[in-house]
């Protein structure tokens, strides 16, 4: 019961701030309201017994990526961007499409009888994640380093001012 209450509170926080992110005319406000959204999702992870993922969510998303987005906003648009039209002419078809998609996805989720495999989640997920990375997910582990390398180099090449 308490968990449900916590879930509802977190969902409301997440969705309301997400709506602000999507709908705000002020781009800075959008970026800032991304933070409660991501924090709310971190709470949802805790509800799902994924403490480590929750911590990373706070660290990377709420911390680093949001800062990056704010940087870019400050580097590009003069001011909050409020004097520009923020939406394009696709609002109506987009709304309809999104609504229909949401309805269809709900139908799928409600209409499916999800199976349940045996076993329980471990007590300390970080330990298990470390074991997974070093054993079955070793390839992911190494390839990820390549992805990061390529992203870093590519971003530097793209962002640097051409001389």
């Amino acid at each position, binding site marked *: 019961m308490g968990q449900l209450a916590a879930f509802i509170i977190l969902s409301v926080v997440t969705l309301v701030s997400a709506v602000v992110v999507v709908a705000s005319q002020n781009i800075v406000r959008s970026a800032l309201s991304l933070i409660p959204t991501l924090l709310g999702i971190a709470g949802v992870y805790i509800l799902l017994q994924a403490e480590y993922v929750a911590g990373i969510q706070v660290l990377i998303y709420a911390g680093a990526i949001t800062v*990056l987005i704010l940087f870019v906003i400050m*580097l590009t648009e003069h001011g909050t961007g409020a004097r520009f039209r923020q939406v394009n002419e696709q609002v109506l078809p987009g709304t309809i499409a999104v609504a229909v998609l949401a309805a269809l996805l709900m139908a799928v989720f409600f209409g499916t009888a999800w199976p349940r495999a045996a076993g329980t989640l471990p007590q300390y997920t970080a330990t298990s994640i470390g074991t997974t990375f070093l054993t079955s997910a070793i390839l992911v582990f190494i390839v990820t380093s390549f992805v990061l390398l390529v992203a870093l180099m590519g971003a530097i090449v793209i962002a640097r001012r051409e001389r």
Partner: protein
Amino acid sequence: MLLVDWLYVGVFLVVGLAMAALPLAVVWALAPRLAQPQKRTTYESGVVPFGQAWAQFNVRYYLFSLVFVIFDVEVIYLYPWSIVFRQYGRYAFFVMLIFVGILLLGLIHAWRKGALEWT
């Protein structure tokens, strides 16, 4: 997980908020107030501000934050690794050596491209 477990979080939350609020409250209670328009301007090292507050930043800021983000992400992998490191010994050491080595190439690239120079 019981609701009681959240009590610790609640206690920390309250204490943290109190730690932030208390100095402000003390200042609000004790400091004299003098209404002057200058006080409402943005503080810029004592200099009278000019121009807009939304100034264009230099690209360097972005590059620094980018490098920061990438190496921040490294933590995702470093932390679980450090927990199980003892268990796997030399194998884990070499795996991480490869991981860090590859990322080091990125750092070298950033350095060679001058992304780490401030001036």
